[in-house]
Each structure stands twice: as C-alpha cells, then as structure tokens.
C-alpha cells in the first residue's frame, strides 16, 4: 500500500479524474473531500463490507424457506 502524509488542505490525485482532499482533522476523525466522475461509486468501507456480508448471507437459504416466507408475507398482506 502506498502511504502518504498529508496536511489539512492538501490532496492526492489518482489517475486522470479522481481528486482526494483532506479537509480537516477534528476529534480523531479526518474529513475527506472526494472529486470523482459520477459513474464512479464511492462508499464508506464499512457500509460496503456490511452489504457484501449481507448479500453473502442471503445466498444461504433453501426451497423450504421460500414457502415459509411466502406464508409469512401473505399473512401480513391479508391482515392489512
């Protein structure tokens, strides 16, 4: 991993069109500004990892679950 030291107000350029700026350091956190093309997805690591884990977990089911789920959802709908 490339490790660089930056001060508030300084930045990093990645490739042709990504710019990362350290905005401020405050209370143990770092505020970072990111300029990137709109089609580039930018996510906080822990949010992304959580979704990834959840998707993985979501593949662990079997056909019997489908019927059970269907019944639960249907009963919810019928009560409305």
């Amino acid at each position, binding site marked *: 991993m490339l490790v660089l030291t930056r001060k508030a107000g300084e930045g990093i350029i990645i490739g042709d069109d990504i710019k990362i700026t350290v905005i401020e350091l405050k209370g143990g956190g770092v505020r970072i500004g990111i300029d990137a093309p709109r089609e580039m997805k930018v996510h906080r690591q822990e949010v992304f990892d959580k979704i990834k884990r959840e998707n993985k977990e979501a*593949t662990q*089911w079997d056909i019997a679950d489908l019927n059970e789920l269907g019944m639960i959802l249907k009963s919810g709908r019928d009560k409305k």
Partner: protein
Amino acid sequence: MKKIQSRFGEIEYDPSNLLLFPEGLIGFEDLRDFIVMPNEKAGPLFWIQSVDDPQIAFILTDPTDFYFDYKVVPDGREQQKLGIDKDDECLVVSVMTVPPSRKITINLAAPIFFAPKTNRALQVILEGTQFSPQTPLPTVEEKPSEE
C-alpha cells in the same frame, strides 16, 4: 431452452430472457446473468438463480408491500446503467435473508432497481440512509405476552 444444475436441482431457462446485472451484485460482481424464478406458491416473492454459479441464488420481494414509505428511485447515472430514460418503468426489489436464527430480514440499505424494458437490474447502496441492511420483517401476529 438451456439447462443448468443449481443446488436446487436442474433448472431449464430461456437464454434470451435472462436478467442482466451489468455490475453484478455487491460482493458478486462477476455474476451478471440470472434466471428469474417465480415462486410456486402465490405471494409477493420470487428468486433469482445465477447462471454461472449454481450455488448462488437470492430471494427477492417488493419492499413497498410492507414498508409503504420506502421510496427509492434511480438517479441519472443509474438509469443509464439500466439502459432506460427517466420516464421508463423502474421497479424496486429487496434481497431477503433467512439467517440460522430464522429471524428473517430484508435489506433496505441496498435495494435492487429492475428495469422491465431492458431486463436489467442494478444493486445500489443507499448512502446516509436510516434503512438497515438487516431490517426485520414487520411483525404481523400478536406476540404472546411474556410476563
């Protein structure tokens, strides 16, 4: 028609009628083509099976069935990936999880947009949302009192 062996057995499908995730799902970026499987029993559920990995299948449902105020729409960039214009129909579905604890949850933090016109789908992560990836299903039955 073509056939694949899934972990649920043999599935026959029409290769011209696959659901395409141009970016895969999060964590499964390489899996692009899915077969849409209707649930055999009546209900708002269906599931999708990866054509390329027999182990990978997801249960999906329409979250607005029980979360009326759940409203997400694709932005311009996402519409482009789906191959649609802003006036084209775009449905929202959510991935359901059946964990070992059997406490079924629905992922409202990363919905899937589905464009019927192009048969394309895109999973997106909602940033700064109050919706959880493990939203419990609303309880519909009276819980027995625990006193």
